[in-house]
């Protein structure tokens, strides 16, 4: 696989989660604005951590197994895509679990007032968004 190795791993990861969108009708990709607002800060913060870690010599990337496209800070393109793919997969899984179990997660209508403290999760407690 050579230089596409890292990219292929990311593609596999995405494929392993994308089916959740149509099968469980989680509407994660359809709610792309919310997804974008979620992913952008993650890319920024963890990207900075990554740049700092590379600078500190914590880890490095094999140039023979990455595309060679480097982004500002010297990060391979794949590493930044990692911070996009993992959150997207995590949110897809989270929404699928929530759809199946119907447990509240805290974003339901009236779940918490503005600035209100979140309530503890009571499994099976019956969130308000269960009508169907």
């Amino acid at each position, binding site marked *: 696989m050579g230089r596409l190795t890292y990219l292929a*791993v990311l593609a596999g*990861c995405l494929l392993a989660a994308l089916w959740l969108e149509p099968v469980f009708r989680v509407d994660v990709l359809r709610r792309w*604005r*919310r997804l974008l607002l979620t992913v952008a800060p993650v890319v920024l913060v963890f990207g900075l951590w990554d740049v700092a870690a590379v600078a500190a*010599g914590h880890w490095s*990337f094999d140039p023979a197994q990455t595309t060679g496209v480097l982004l500002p800070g010297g990060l391979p393109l794949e590493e930044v895509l990692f911070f996009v793919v993992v959150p997207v997969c995590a949110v897809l899984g989270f929404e699928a679990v929530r759809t199946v179990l119907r447990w509240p997660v805290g*974003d339901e209508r009236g779940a918490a007032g503005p600035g209100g403290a*979140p309530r503890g*999760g009571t499994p099976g407690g019956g969130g308000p968004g269960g009508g169907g």
Partner: protein
Amino acid sequence: MTYTQAALLGVVAAMLVDLAVLRTGLLRRGVFWVTYPIVVAFQLLVNGVLTGRSVVRYHPDAILGVRLAYAPVEDLLFGFALVLVSLSLWVWWGRRGVQPPDHRRKV
């Protein structure tokens, strides 16, 4: 600072984001603890391949040396922080009214 220290710091920071900053309280919710083991299984696979094939190489001085499916245990902490912050942000935006779940329940 070693990767071990940075990863521990990352976990603490992520927990603070969830419990105190965004106040999403996912750590107290069942849905998170059902989701996380599923995500972590894939994470071990991905990190295992990336580390096992030496796509990502770790400096021995930066890690404890304890490995799980080829990947240093620190990756597990890094991954936990990454997933917790991502899900916390997702729920936070939804609670603020950005494309909340209700719109899709129009059957």
